């Protein structure tokens, strides 16, 4: 289940293997030394880390804000919850293709900006906006899931505690940080870990919207791996990329998991 194939990936990463000719030759750590000197690889690591950090921060901030806004009795709250959740059920291909039209140089977003007298950039083809555009596409697609998890967590925060804080003169902002956040900390940890993992595995939006470009600005690791394996047909080298990608995911997950003692009170 994922583990056995991964052992094969580790083994392949020590080999030079071109499936077209069928040659496979043990070369030790050569693939890894080659990675260390490959500028495309370092650009790819940077793109992946920036993408992941952007998605993590934006996703959690928006998810918690929406959950706090929706956590009240009011007409039409369910309708808004449904709207924010709806992209989760939309096919990632349909979602990406649609955003591709909207982000095009003469697409809907620049058209709207034009009405305000602003000349929008070519979002997906400009290296300074391409990665952040992908972050936005990914965040709006998935943030509804985290919002729902936070809503469930907020419903576990007793109203009395917040009222008590308010009676003691705490501002809403203060009571949010001192009362609400500590009580939903286990959910922040869980969604943080899952969102990090998910963002490091991103593929479809990259392939459909930017193809890793312009330059290597959006050439995230899963996409770089795919191209190395299935376009340039280097299975050994692609496996080494895969091992590094897994190592990054493992390291970031462990980092968040071990940091929990500092800021998460109850065990998850």
């Amino acid at each position, binding site marked *: *289940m*994922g*583990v056995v*194939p*991964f052992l*094969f*990936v580790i083994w392949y990463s020590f080999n030079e293997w071109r*499936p077209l000719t069928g040659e496979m030759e043990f070369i030790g750590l050569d693939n890894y030394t080659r990675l260390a000197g490959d500028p495309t690889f370092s650009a790819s690591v940077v793109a992946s880390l920036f993408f992941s950090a952007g998605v993590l921060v934006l996703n959690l901030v928006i998810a918690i804000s*929406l959950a706090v*806004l*929706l956590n009240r009795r009011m007409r039409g709250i*369910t309708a*808004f*919850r*449904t*709207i*924010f*959740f*709806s992209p*989760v059920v*939309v*096919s*990632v*291909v*349909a979602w990406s*293709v*649609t*955003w591709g*039209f*909207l982000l*095009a140089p*003469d697409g*809907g977003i620049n*058209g*709207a900006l*034009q*009405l305000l007298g602003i000349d929008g950039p070519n979002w997906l083809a400009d290296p300074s906006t391409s990665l952040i555009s992908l972050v936005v596409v990914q965040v*709006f697609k998935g943030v509804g*899931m985290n919002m*729902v*998890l936070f*809503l*469930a967590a907020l419903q576990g925060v007793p109203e009395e505690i917040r009222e008590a804080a308010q009676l003691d003169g705490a501002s809403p902002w203060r009571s949010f940080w001192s009362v609400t956040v500590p009580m939903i900390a286990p*959910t922040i940890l*869980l969604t943080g870990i*899952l969102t990090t*993992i998910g963002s*490091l*595995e991103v593929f*479809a939006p990259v*392939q459909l919207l930017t193809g890793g470009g312009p330059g290597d600005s959006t050439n995230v690791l*899963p996409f770089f*791996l795919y191209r190395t*394996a299935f376009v340039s047909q280097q*299975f050994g080298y692609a496996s080494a990329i*895969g091992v590094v*990608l*897994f190592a990054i*995911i*493992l390291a970031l997950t462990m980092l968040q998991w071990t940091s929990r003692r500092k800021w998460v009170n109850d065990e998850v």
Partner: protein
Amino acid sequence: MRSDASRAARQRSRITTVTLYVLLIAVSVPFLYPTLWMFFSSFKPANEIFMQPPALLPREWTLDGFVQVFTAQPFVQQYGNSMYIAIVVTAASILLSAMAGYAFARIRFPLRSAAFTLLLAAMMVPTEVTIIPIFTAVNALGLNDTHWPLIILPIFGPTAVVSVFIFRQHFLSFPKEYEEAARLDGVSRVGIFFRIALPLATPAIAAVGIMAFLRSFNMYFEALIFLRTPEKFTLGLAITRYQDFYGEQMWNTQLGAASLTVVPILVVFLIAQKQFVQGLAQTGLKG
């Protein structure tokens, strides 16, 4: 004086409510607009897609895009492919992950906690990483360009881990007394699972079923790697392949195919949204 103060307070709260609605409506735009634009643009003639200033509704309504969805590709067959694969994957995922989750929750076996840790670790291995050995194995078995890898991989792959986890959490919180009573009556372990534990696991079944169906129906990467023949394509792959004979993108057709993929799922979601959202939130990843 007093009534003035309370009137002021009421007015303030009304202002807060109005502000909140305005804020929520503004925030809704990036969530709702793309889907609405996709749907209405599939009724536009192709030359209206990039017309300025941008408009949500077509100036001229046409079904040309939708007609081409079916003439340019075997779309009905592709729809059937996605549907039957998703149904098989959903049924198999529910059954297998329920059995695995039950075993982790109830049955003592050697190395149980080690096996569970290993299972959770598998969640951190991206599909893109293990695709190389899997691709090689699929080729060796002669299953390239068939639906087999698209059915087998999601059932046993990293996504199944979450399903097993959901069922384990569910069965851990399920009272043991029911099962003990049945055991005293001489019902076997298998009988207890199928006749008592599984039928009472509806919330977990709903959560796992919805997730497995969506994952499979919206799958893209595996289809891209394994499928070559248009008749075997699933919807995600099909949407990306709408081009005319000169290699130009058929914009309204592509959006039409995307709408036909998304809208039925959205309608089911709107009808059953309570079960969707609550099922995922409650049994979902809370434990």
